[in-house]
């Protein structure tokens, strides 16, 4: 079980309203990702759920019971911290066993659970080492091990991969996804990296300035961003957001076209000059200065040979243009 509901949760630090008011329902077994730029309140929200911070007003229920006033230890949640927060003076075995010791289990029970967790996480050979003797990825696994032995109602991850190098990050991302598939426990995952959000989540919650901008599956957010913020945040390279006459022609204040939805055409469309071209082999990223819509990003196929200074004509693919009103919200 692991169903979490936030009711009008509000958090102020002194005078600053970090989270004005949030309502959210997280279903049992879901993998939910909180994503947003730094300072958007996503980590604070996670800490509120964990009980490491008090809500200023509103309520949190876990599996139907009110957990608003419960201390972290009593909420039955486990957390993996950005810095891993391993106990440096304890061996890996003791680190993983610590929550079990706190729960008053016998040493035999602890050992059995540690062994099975170590097996899942490939840590069996490292149990007697100290965290300081482990690599970043191994430390990450220990932190996860410490979380899973508690058999929590939900796992909370606070930017757990941000301290790893790029290659390891992709691996750990897959491991966490696989872990979720085998445990089927609710996971709440905070990140500022929209790629992590898109690849891992069942449900993405996009946050900005303490407000939820949109909640939905990765593809929903990609295909139907609710507003210009989500449109600009989700997707890489970023969606081109265009204002002015070209937008007004379509009856909108702003129109958005993803770089991958711009086609290079022989005639018509917007004419421009290539400013920068990056050939990655599989793709070619172009920065094109146009007369009509300013500088826009284009993601073209790998075989394109355009270079700096070449003239080019671009046309948005029909049906892939997003229209937004003056309030930034999507127009249907």
């Amino acid at each position, binding site marked *: 079980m692991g169903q979490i509901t936030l009711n009008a949760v509000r958090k102020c630090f002194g005078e600053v309203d970090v989270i004005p008011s949030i309502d959210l329902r997280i279903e049992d077994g879901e993998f939910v990702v909180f994503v947003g730029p730094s300072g958007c309140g996503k980590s604070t929200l996670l800490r509120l759920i964990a009980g*490491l*911070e*008090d809500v200023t007003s509103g309520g949190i229920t876990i599996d139907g019971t009110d957990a608003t006033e419960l*201390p972290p230890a009593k909420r039955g949640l486990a957390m993996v911290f950005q810095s891993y927060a391993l106990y440096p003076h304890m061996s890996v075995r003791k680190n993983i066993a610590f929550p079990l010791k706190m729960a008053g289990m016998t040493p035999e029970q602890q050992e059995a659970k540690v062994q099975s967790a170590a097996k899942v996480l490939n840590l069996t050979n490292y149990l007697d080492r100290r965290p300081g003797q482990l690599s970043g990825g191994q430390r990450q696994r220990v932190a996860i091990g410490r979380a899973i032995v508690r058999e929590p109602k939900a796992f909370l991850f606070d930017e757990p991969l941000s301290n790893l190098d790029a290659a390891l990050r992709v691996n750990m991302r897959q491991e966490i996804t696989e872990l979720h598939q085998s445990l089927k426990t609710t996971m709440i995952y905070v990140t500022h990296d929209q790629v992590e959000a898109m690849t891992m989540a069942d449900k993405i919650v996009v946050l900005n300035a303490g407000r939820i901008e949109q909640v939905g599956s990765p593809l929903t957010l990609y295909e139907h961003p609710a507003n210009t913020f989500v449109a600009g945040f989700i997707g890489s390279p970023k969606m081109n957001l265009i204002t002015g006459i070209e937008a007004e022609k379509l009856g909108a204040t702003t129109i958005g076209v993803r770089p991958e939805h711009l086609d290079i055409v022989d005639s018509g469309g917007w004419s421009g000059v290539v400013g920068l071209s990056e050939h990655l082999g599989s793709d070619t990223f172009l920065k094109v200065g146009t007369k009509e819509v300013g500088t826009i990003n284009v993601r073209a196929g790998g075989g394109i040979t355009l270079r700096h200074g070449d003239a080019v004509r671009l046309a948005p693919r029909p049906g892939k243009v997003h229209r937004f009103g003056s309030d930034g919200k999507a127009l249907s």
Partner: protein
Amino acid sequence: MATQHSRLAARFMVAPSVGFLFVWMIVPLVTTVYFSFLVYNLLHPERQGWAGFDNYYYFLTDRAFLTAVWHSVALVVGVLCITVVGGILLALLLNLPFWGQGVVRVLVIAPFFVMPTVSALVWKNMFMNPVNGMFAHIAKGLGLQPYDFLGHAPMLSIIGIVSWEWLPFATLILLTALQSLDSEQQEAAEMDGANWMNRFIYLTLPHLTRAITVVILIQTIFLLSIYAEIAVTTGGGPASTTITYLVAQQSLYGNDVGGASAGGIVAVILANIVAVFVMRMIGKNLDA
């Protein structure tokens, strides 16, 4: 960043420390203030009542008071000058590469760990004694008349002894500060054509400013309360009594509790003037 639970717990955790220190500071201090306004003489228990500011008046107008203030200032300023200048020079020397740095460091720091009564007695007897002291032996060896340091120049002798005790402290702190000096910055200055003197004046000295301030302020606090060195070497005497010693003497051996209390409060006020500067400085540093 915390919850109600932890904030409440924090209050309970701080309470004993705060409570003990509060009682330790306030109760005796208030009592002293109270005594200082009383006619309270152990030899004349029948005379009682309020003294108003009389005790302060007598203490402040006593000639011993002004002399004691002068001695306190001389002690503090003298020791500070010697230890700061000596400490800078010594730290600069010890910061250069040489063989046996660890051992020399240990030798230099040693006097700081010697208890004040021991250092005072060792200096008084084994070195400054006009008959059997090391200095007397050296003087005799050179065919000179031995000098009675503590007899003829008690304040200077005490300043010398206390400087020996505190030079290690100043050196150690300044050396620590020197070691955090950015060597790339020094090298950049060298590339820019700054010579040794310029680098010392424009880079090293500004870098040491904070450490020097710390040394001055913290030493001042300790130096103002120097007691054992005077008690052991000269036992007071008009030529070497500082404020602290004067008040302690009056408190313990005099019978005028009221007068001694007034002296104590004066000492507190004088020390507080210094303390304000120390606190400001450390306070500024607290968030950094």
